[in-house]
């Protein structure tokens, strides 16, 4: 494992862990962080969260990572991975990198 790879993983893992723990806490999910596979669907299938939960998830992301999520956001909220991708992308934009 190269250092570059490890750094990449650490950065991504940090976002994943923060998001997962907030998700579990706010939505009272009966799961541990390790139980949540990053590709599991959040809305509809998979975790089967509803529209009210979706609003809560959006606030969760906006508060935890200090970024804005657009109102038309179904593509962002498809799985933990897609959320994390969006967060990392927005953070990079903010940092101007």
């Amino acid at each position, binding site marked *: *494992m*190269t250092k570059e*790879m490890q750094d*990449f*993983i650490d950065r*991504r*893992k940090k976002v994943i862990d923060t998001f997962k723990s907030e998700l579990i806490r706010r939505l009272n999910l*009966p*799961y541990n962080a*390790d*139980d*949540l*596979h*990053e*590709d*599991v*669907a959040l809305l*509809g*299938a*998979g*975790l*089967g969260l*509803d*529209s009210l939960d979706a609003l809560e998830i959006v606030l969760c992301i906006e508060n935890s990572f200090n970024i804005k999520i657009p109102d038309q956001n*179904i*593509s962002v909220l*498809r*799985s933990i*991975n*897609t959320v*994390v*991708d969006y967060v990392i992308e927005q953070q990079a934009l903010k940092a101007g990198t």
Partner: protein
Amino acid sequence: MRPLQLHDRWMDAHAAVAQRFGTEIVSIISDPKKEYSHVRDAVGISDFSHMQKFNVPEEKGLDFLDNLLAGNVAKVRFGRVLHTFLADNDGFLVADCFMANNDEELVLLCESIVNDAALKTVLNNNGAQEAGLVDLSENHVVLGIDGYKAWAVVKDLFGADIVGLPYLSIERFSYEGENVRLFRAGKTSEFGYLIMAPAQCAESLFLKCKELSEKYGGGLCGLNIHNDLRLEGRFFNIFAEGLKVRDPLALGLQWMIDFDKEKFLGRDAILKRRSAGLTHKIIGISLEPGAGELKPGAPIFNGPEKVSEVVASCFSYVLNRSIGLALFPVAIAYSGLSFNLGAPNGPVIKTISMPPIMPKSLSVKLDEM
């Protein structure tokens, strides 16, 4: 072997058949790209009768199924469907199940990686007869209607009320005087319905569905294409990665499990593996367009070290590239990394976030929550 009820009608359509776990299935009509396009761009009609189908009266069936399946059967509300699995005593997958609460009856649809007899044995060993489980596999068909126009076909069949049916629900309808069970439960990430119908009206229903699908610009599909569609939509496919990996935890199926439930088949083994912690995890992979093809079994290298193997793959027409799934050690099971396919200096393979495609159905607002 359990033959297709609609065997002759599929032959009329020049379909190729095959055998899978002791059941005859339609593998392909002729052109996979065309079948893919039916589902992704219009509506595809497929024969899902390979599913084992059962019903059981709710009174005793509730406990029977709850003690068997990994998910919480008791909490399924009237009219709703639970997507869960059946494991063996060692906590490895046997069947991918839809369990529906259909008011006084519970309906079970299974996609199994064992044949009918083996599945029946498991059920009988766990109280099926006492609960009054009835096997409907032989005398019922299951037709799959998938695609972003699927709702239009089902609306033509059963009326406008279907438009409000939420994902993972069941509703009774009548077709030619026969009782038909409609499930809204697809695995392609487009709108999907399953119609479970008795043999008496199967043929007529099939022909009607075929006609309606053509009306909306779609047509018939085999089951091979569903492997691709499921992978693209990141829906669990027991016949692909499920068959190779078998461990629901490594497959990311924890959402199908109620860990607080006191009893289900394989519970002890699964809980033990859960507390020990995952060592490997399934993750999406992708090859650049033109860089070749992902094949199940092909090794994946991290530098000089082989770390994984392709477990499932398909060519995604939408993405114009080969995508797949592989089982990675958890330390490197993260999206966005690069590895090599086949050899340390082989084509670059990336781990990707799933699902990788935006299905047309997500842009259509049906009256749903």
